[in-house]
């Protein structure tokens, strides 16, 4: 046992325990969940170990290998629980052996502990935990909350603050999610090959939802929201390391990193949103762009066709590579949108494709696609459809039609700043007409 200098006082030890918990909780929960086959119970047992640490470390000092300490305590609790439960007879000897090994590990030197922590079992356990937390039997909200709770080590109140919902709501979602998993007898496992792709899509969707919740936020605590983006990227990097051959995972991480690189440039001095082509590119985070491009290269190196995330990352990368807005490779972006529209068609992708086509090949090419979207029910109340159409009409010199579209777009948006801008554009069309 050693309490390193500067970590002696109680507050410092609590900060250390918090940090250890953030680093280790997912692994401990995953390891214990493999023993007890119940993520809810596993989390409870891991929390018991955390409570023990909070009780003992301030007095005895932080152990040399806090991860092994916590894991050993959690496993012992699990063993106690199993001994008293129905499973005891069958599982106890096996778990007892594991526990002995764990004790030895706790005393071995650090290198061995790291080796042990890195063995495939733990990696598999973590992967099982990801797939279980993102199981389709749960609602999307529940998947998000459970993933942040089990994989991110975030407390319920932190998740609640991040999503701007009452803590009780999040707590209930998590409790219900754990019960649903138990009642549905969801096995704690990585899905087999034929199910893997569909289930992986659910995992990636959850990570991207977490990211977008932080990235698209216009309201709320400005500290927690960027933290959600960071958490999603960190979780994405973990999944990418656990499944290095899944190109879509690298694609998603790259997409998140390149989008996050623009965070500082997305908002103007008075808090107004700044559109991508008008952003000060000097404020883009080049480190994140480099990482995103590297992730995309990794996805590419795996061969095969890009999935939707890698395609979107490739589009984002075109912007990331361009030193000025004029340098943007629009023909390539248009081609990537063609591929995306084929792979996962949606009216929004189609609208973006229209913009890319107009930038690459002129407004008429874009207008053709936009006109085809006019009857699309999903876009009837979507202000960007008339806004884009108005822009293309204006470029074609059809000012009167453009003005009507800008007016229509202004009536559809709920954002005051956007409405002001659209009305100004409509007025500009009218003024130059006379």
């Amino acid at each position: 046992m050693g309490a390193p200098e500067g970590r002696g006082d109680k507050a410092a030890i609590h900060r250390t325990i918090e940090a250890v918990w953030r680093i280790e909780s997912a692994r401990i929960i995953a390891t214990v969940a493999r023993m007890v086959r119940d993520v809810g119970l596993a989390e409870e047992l891991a929390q018991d170990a955390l409570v023990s640490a909070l009780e003992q470390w301030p007095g005895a000092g932080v152990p040399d290998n806090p991860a092994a300490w916590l894991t050993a305590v959690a496993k012992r609790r699990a063993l106690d629980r199993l001994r008293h439960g129905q499973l005891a007879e069958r599982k106890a000897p096996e778990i007892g052996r594991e526990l002995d090994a764990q004790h030895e590990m706790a005393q071995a030197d650090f290198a061995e502990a790291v080796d042990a922590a890195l063995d495939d079992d733990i990696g598999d356990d973590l992967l099982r935990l990801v797939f279980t937390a993102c199981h389709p039997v749960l609602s999307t909200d529940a998947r998000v909350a459970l993933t942040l709770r089990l994989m991110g080590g975030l407390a319920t109140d932190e998740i609640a603050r991040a999503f701007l919902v009452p803590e009780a709501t999040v707590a209930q979602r998590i409790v219900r999610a754990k019960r649903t998993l138990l009642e549905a007898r969801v096995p704690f496992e990585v899905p087999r090959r034929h199910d893997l792709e569909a289930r992986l899509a659910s995992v990636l969707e959850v990570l991207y939802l977490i990211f977008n919740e932080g990235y698209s936020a216009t309201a709320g605590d400005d500290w927690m929201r960027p933290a959600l983006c960071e958490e999603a990227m960190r979780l994405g990097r973990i999944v990418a390391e656990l499944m290095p051959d899944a190109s879509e995972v690298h694609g998603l991480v790259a997409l998140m990193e390149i989008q996050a690189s623009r965070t500082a440039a997305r908002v103007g001095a008075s808090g107004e949103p700044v559109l991508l082509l008008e952003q000060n590119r000097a404020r883009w985070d080049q480190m994140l762009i480099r990482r995103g491009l590297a992730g995309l290269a990794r996805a590419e190196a795996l061969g095969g066709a890009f999935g939707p995330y890698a395609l979107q990352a490739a589009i984002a990368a075109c912007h990331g590579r361009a030193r000025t807005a004029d340098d943007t490779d629009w023909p390539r972006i248009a081609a990537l949108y063609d591929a995306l529209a084929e792979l996962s068609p949606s009216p929004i992708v189609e609208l973006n494709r229209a913009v890319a086509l107009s930038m690459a090949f002129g407004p008429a090419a874009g207008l053709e696609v936009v006109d085809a979207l006019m009857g699309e029910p999903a876009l009837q109340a979507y202000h960007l459809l008339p806004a884009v159409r108005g822009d293309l009409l204006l470029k074609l010199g059809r000012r009167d039609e453009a003005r009507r579209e800008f007016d229509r777009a202004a009536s559809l948006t709920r954002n005051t700043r956007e409405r002001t801008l659209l009305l100004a554009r409509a007025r500009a069309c009218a003024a130059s007409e006379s």
Partner: protein
Amino acid sequence: MRFMLLMIPHGYETAAPGTIPDDVDAVAAMMAYNESMQKAGVLISCDGLHPPSMGARVSFPGRKPKVVDGPFAEAKEVLGGYWIIDVPSRADAIEWATRCPGSENEVIEVRQIQEIADFPPDVQALTTEFASMQAAKKA
């Protein structure tokens, strides 16, 4: 927030040119440590540095540049390598540093990396080109 973990190995200030880690077990342990950070999703980058005997120091006596080749007689501690990690708090960065399989002569200094957002607005205005400078250097 990003942190730099600076590895300062005592004795490295006098290491001969071309000195390279050759203790297989130590390197393996260090690689396992790096991998644990990568698998936790926090590792941004890491590098080792050749000894200062292969380097040079540029100082500015009387505000004029003066170049001195290594090794540097007066050096007490020098950098041997670094990690850049992205973690939620200073305590997390310190916790990761404590997990390094460091040897007795090594010290890790934990330093937070300045983000443009850390500067006051008027200073930020002066640093708008900073990101593109970082890009140019690495391109």
